[in-house]
């Protein structure tokens, strides 16, 4: 994938390390995190869990915290040593919930507001990536919600940040606009070479975009790890409830069946999935989200079935969650992948399923959620 020319001023990506405490009304925000220097970190939690407050602390927009924040080898905050770098010297781009465009500048003026000279060469590439070439001479008041967000994202990127923070950038957009902007953001995060922290309370957004997940609850970090790993954890099923117990699989587009509108996705050399046709070109890597409840199990491969996908799997693990006593949560290993599935207790007992058993996992083609 073509990366934008990286800026010589900071050739290495900076990872974010923080350990902060802040009193927030009823609860205390207390977070210790060490985030990777590349990829997208989803900051997930219910409203009021402290996501936005944490973001403000990282950006330096709120001074009332104790602790330390480091971006790469730079100390942004270290209350013990009396260090507080003001926001304008942190080199952290922020995309706010509202676009916050400057109403008295044209789109072009907004985009170049924070642009240092050495970032000028990226201007054309970024506006093309965001599809805002045609908007340059417009005033912000004339833009639609989705257009304004895209300009705000471009503006933040052109300020040449070392870290990009996005605070629920899809808030207030309707379904179609939301999907469109999410596509732009996904594309962008794959091509821009800086780490991104993406705040959201929407599981769909997070699973579309994040590589790493931080789960927040009442001001505390409840779990932090790669998104795929956290989604496999039974103990987080309730907290990640909105995620609807799903698995993420990634594969490469290897064939299109135009006549039936189907796309073949190779997970590895032994395993392929058939999913509803997409316009993705051959060779493109796609992420698919498979809901646990969309998977059925069979003891032997059924001969006549409408299930397009039949994969040989081993039951690697299972549990019965106290909050759902009549369903069984299980993990299946398929080659090198893990898939979550959910069965009724009755099916589990009648089929005599056990840990370590060989089964066939059946996945309907239509249940794919290509992102």
């Amino acid at each position, binding site marked *: 994938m073509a990366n934008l020319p990286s800026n010589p001023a900071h050739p290495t990506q900076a990872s974010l390390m923080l350990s902060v405490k802040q009193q927030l009304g009823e609860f205390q925000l207390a977070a210790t995190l060490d985030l990777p220097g590349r990829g997208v970190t989803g900051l997930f939690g219910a409203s009021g869990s402290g996501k936005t407050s944490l973001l403000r602390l990282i950006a330096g927009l709120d001074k009332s915290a104790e602790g330390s924040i480091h971006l790469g080898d730079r100390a942004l905050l270290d209350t013990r040593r009396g260090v507080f770098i003001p926001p304008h010297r942190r080199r952290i781009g922020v995309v*706010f919930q509202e676009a916050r465009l400057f109403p*008295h500048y044209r789109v072009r003026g907004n985009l170049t507001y924070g642009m240092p000279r050495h970032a000028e060469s990226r201007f054309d590439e970024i506006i093309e990536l965001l599809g805002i070439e045609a908007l340059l001479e417009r*005033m912000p008041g004339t833009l639609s919600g989705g257009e304004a967000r895209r300009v705000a994202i471009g503006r933040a990127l052109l300020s040449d940040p070392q870290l990009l923070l996005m605070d629920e950038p899809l808030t207030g957009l309707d379904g179609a606009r939301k999907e469109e902007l999410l596509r732009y953001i996904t594309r962008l995060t794959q091509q821009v070479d800086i780490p991104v922290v993406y705040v959201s309370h929407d599981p769909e957004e997070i699973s579309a975009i994040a590589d790493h997940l931080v789960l927040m609850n009442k001001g505390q970090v409840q779990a932090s790890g790669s998104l795929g790993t956290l989604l496999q954890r039974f103990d987080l099923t309730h907290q990640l409830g909105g995620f609807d117990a799903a698995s993420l699989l990634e594969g490469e587009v290897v064939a299109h069946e135009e006549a039936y509108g189907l796309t073949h996705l190779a997970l590895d050399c032994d395993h392929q999935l058939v999913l509803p046709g997409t316009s993705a070109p051959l060779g493109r890597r796609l992420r698919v989200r498979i809901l646990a409840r969309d998977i059925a199990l069979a003891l032997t491969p059924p001969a006549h079935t409408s299930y397009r996908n039949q994969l040989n799997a081993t039951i690697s693990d299972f549990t019965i969650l106290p909050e759902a006593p009549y369903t069984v949560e299980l993990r299946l290993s398929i080659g090198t992948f893990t898939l979550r599935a959910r069965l009724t207790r009755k099916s589990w007992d009648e089929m005599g399923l056990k840990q370590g058993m060989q089964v066939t996992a059946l996945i309907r083609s239509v249940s794919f959620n290509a992102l």
Partner: protein
Amino acid sequence: MTLSPAEWEAIRLSLLIGLAAVAWILPPGIAVAWWLARHEFRGKAIVDGLIHLPLVLPPVVVGYLLLVALGRQGVIGQWLYSTLGISLPFTWQGAAVASGVMAFPLLVRALRLSLEAVDPKLEAAASTLGASRWRIFTTITLPLAVPGLLTGTVLAFARALSEFGATITFASNIPGETRTLPLALYTLIQTPGQEATAARLCIIAIVIALLSLIASEWLARRTRQRLQERDG
């Protein structure tokens, strides 16, 4: 209607003193308005009250206080005269100081309201884009407060133009130096047989005041429109 040289002189002096007054109060006026709009501090009400004092005090009191402070024997005036050789009383510059002090609260009031209406979220966004406080103020805050700045400036100008009490107390009524339009009018009224000339000056004063109000309204509307420009 042709104007006599004395009338021209009064108009010229009024405009000169009005402009000079606005020019010197603009920098401190902007600073004070911004400070009041963006900061909470102990004793803010007192500072606010002090700034508004010239609006409610008899102008003669302001003129007298200026004499005490800036007169040649005054606390600051003595220093001004001995070190810089500047003497303000009985000069047009002194008249500009007096009318500026009287106009100051009008400027600060209008500007402060406008600055308070500027969304601090935009300023926060600018800071994350690398803008220093000074750059944020000059590129975001002040430009968005231009309608208030214009209204305040025109109000202050009109007030300075028509200032009477403080000016006559501090700078006296000297033809060609400090005799502005209101002072000329006052002199004419005191002089028997000059009723017609007084009436003419009165009309001129009304015309100038109206023109500046219309100009301010027009400018403010234009800026608002520019801020909300829509296509089609």
